[in-house]
């Protein structure tokens, strides 16, 4: 069934105004879109970070769903416990509502300190969706580098200095790591394509078992772009293939958006202060390395999609 904004707008807003995320924050846009995807009550666990801190400064909460924050690295294990209790209570006839479980974590609480708990929860097969809002650094504590920070980005712990030009390591591909757990569904989404985002979250909620969604959440403060450009920046990430939109459903990879015109990485860098140094002549080699890396990964993704498509067709043919 096609998603229409008119229909979605009739649903209640589950993240109220009055939270204290920055003006133009990508994470809050992501959460609003994500919560619109659910048609049954949702219970969320949230790792420490921008989203958690800014939405629940006592005595105010912006959440209109049951919500728990316990610590930084354990959104996945906390929600695993909630889900286990739900299963137990249902089985024992003590609870009869239908509920879906979501864990929210930033890239800090997911790629790094939260990776163990996430991996454990995925492996054990809990029925939940883990949403990582990836703003590519530990933003809440002051823009420190994470393993999601891309090559060359300047952060406060990987600053562009006179000797070292920003982060020298490439970033982790967490979506692939999660898919490699063999979970039923993993996907990358972007806030500038709400329909793609919401339908993928719906798929994730619908599968039985664990699902992982990685949403790029541009951060005006940390990425140094104007606060009204958040959606534009998200689009740029996808059009330069820095952040491909794809899904892995039962092991089959499908790219859900291919830019008509793949834009050069330099455009992505030019739009953000954290990459300003990458366009200097002395960093030309670094820029080239970064471009090659993006191209390589994009090609690899397309190849995987082709390969999986052929496999599916072959299997269907054999089945007949």
């Amino acid at each position, binding site marked *: 069934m096609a998603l229409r904004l008119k229909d979605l707008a009739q649903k209640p807003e589950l993240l109220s105004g009055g939270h204290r995320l920055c003006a133009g924050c990508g994470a809050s846009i992501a959460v609003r879109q994500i919560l619109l995807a659910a048609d049954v*009550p949702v*219970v969320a*666990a949230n790792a420490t970070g921008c989203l*958690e*801190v800014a939405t*629940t*400064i*006592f*005595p105010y*909460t912006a*959440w*209109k*769903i*049951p*919500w*728990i*924050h*316990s*610590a930084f*690295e*354990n959104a996945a*294990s*906390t*929600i*695993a*416990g*909630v*889900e*286990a*209790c*739900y*299963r*137990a*209570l249902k*089985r*024992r006839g003590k*609870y009869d*509502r239908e*509920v879906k479980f979501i864990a929210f974590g930033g890239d800090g609480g997911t790629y790094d300190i939260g990776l*163990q*708990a996430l*991996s*454990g929860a995925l*492996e*054990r097969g809990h029925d939940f969706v883990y949403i990582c809002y990836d703003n590519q650094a530990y933003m809440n504590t002051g823009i420190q580098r994470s393993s999601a920070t891309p090559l060359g980005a300047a952060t406060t712990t990987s600053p562009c200095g006179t000797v070292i030009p920003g982060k020298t390591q490439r970033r982790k591909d967490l979506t692939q790591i999660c898919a490699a757990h063999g979970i039923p569904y993993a996907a990358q989404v972007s806030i500038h394509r709400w329909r793609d985002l919401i339908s993928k979250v719906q798929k994730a909620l619908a599968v039985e078992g664990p699902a992982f969604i990685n949403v790029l959440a541009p951060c005006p403060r940390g990425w140094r772009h104007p606060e009204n450009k958040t959606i534009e920046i998200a689009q740029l990430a996808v059009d330069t293939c820095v952040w491909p939109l794809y899904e892995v459903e039962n092991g089959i990879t499908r790219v859900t958006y291919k830019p008509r015109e793949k834009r050069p990485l330099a455009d992505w860098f030019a739009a953000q202060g954290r990459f300003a140094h990458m366009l200097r002549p002395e960093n030309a080699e670094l820029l080239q390395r970064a471009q090659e890396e993006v191209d390589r990964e994009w090609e690899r993704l397309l190849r995987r999609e082709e390969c999986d498509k052929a496999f599916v067709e072959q299997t269907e043919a054999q089945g007949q």
Partner: protein
Amino acid sequence: MGERILIEGNAAVAYALKQINPDVVAAYPITPATEVVQVFSEYVANGEVDTEFVAVESEHSAMSACIGASVAGGRVMTATSAQGLALMWEMLYIASALRCPIVMTVANRALSANINIHCDHSDSMGARDSGWVQLYSENTQEIYDNMIQGIRIAEHEDVRIPVMVCYDGFVLSHALEVIETNTDEQVQQFIGEFHREDSLLDVDNPKTFGPLDLQDFYFEHKRQQAEVYEHIQPVVEQVGKEYGELSGRSYGPYELYRMDDAEVALVALGSTAGTIKDVVDELREQGRKVGLVKLRMFRPFPAADLVDILGGLKAVGVMDRSTSLGGFGAQLWTEIRSALYGKSEVPVLDYIYGLGGREIQLAEIVNIFDDVERAARDGKVEDAQLIKYVGVRE
């Protein structure tokens, strides 16, 4: 009436878990508590319990999952030891602050480094500020009894605080003892049903758990939590009395052994109390007026009671199976001395023993009594004699 069975400590823990049949157990194996999870897994695999067993990937995740399940309204239990307890340290504070009535057994084991899998109390002592009720067990019977009472204590409406049931690693966890059990029905009737008033699964009344406190509210929240501990001892006593009616074995915050006319006494936690009882009997045969105070409830600390019990003695020896590095004396001694300050001039001596599973000998305990009686005769203790290590090679 249940049965008399021969059982290993850890298996008794698992057996109590089985009879309690909680909603969720999220646990990770660690020596010397490993068998708890293993035996319980057999119960799960054979359908003898219908608990959701979450085989988490670390102890930190164990406590995190326990908190999630508890806030969701479940009856939740787990088990760990030493490094595992240390790994979940931040979560212990969170469990108590979120008022999760989780019951956890801790097979007391030394904290690394060096890595040592044997008994001492450094693990649970390190967690004494985390807001958990702490009960120590002298023998396997007490472990079993403490777990069942622990559920009632934790879930009591005046409490709603997690409970740690401690027992000596290897000494109790791996020893075979005969215990008396209750029937399954008796246990279920004693613990009753659990219902959490403010539950995460109450989707019609969504609540936010674990928000951010700035400087304007944290202090009030902590003060509010601190108040709860003032009301826990009566619950421990009441539950202990009711348990006595059920099983014939009643409990309180402590046990007094031959204290009626004692002039000097030792205070101890855990299995060593059992050993000391034998020495007390031996010395009493010789006419020496000695006794033992076995402390069962270390948290909340029953200060008033201990002042009454110890304040009128001629000297007290405190047995600490742990140490506070850089502190002035070890933990139990520090707290007892602090409670007595201004109330009594009784000399109180600290005996640090048994670290890393070092066994304490009967003869050593006799020496300790000799030492304490000397202090009683002198009426005071030299500073240099106040804190001693027993059983370490110099």
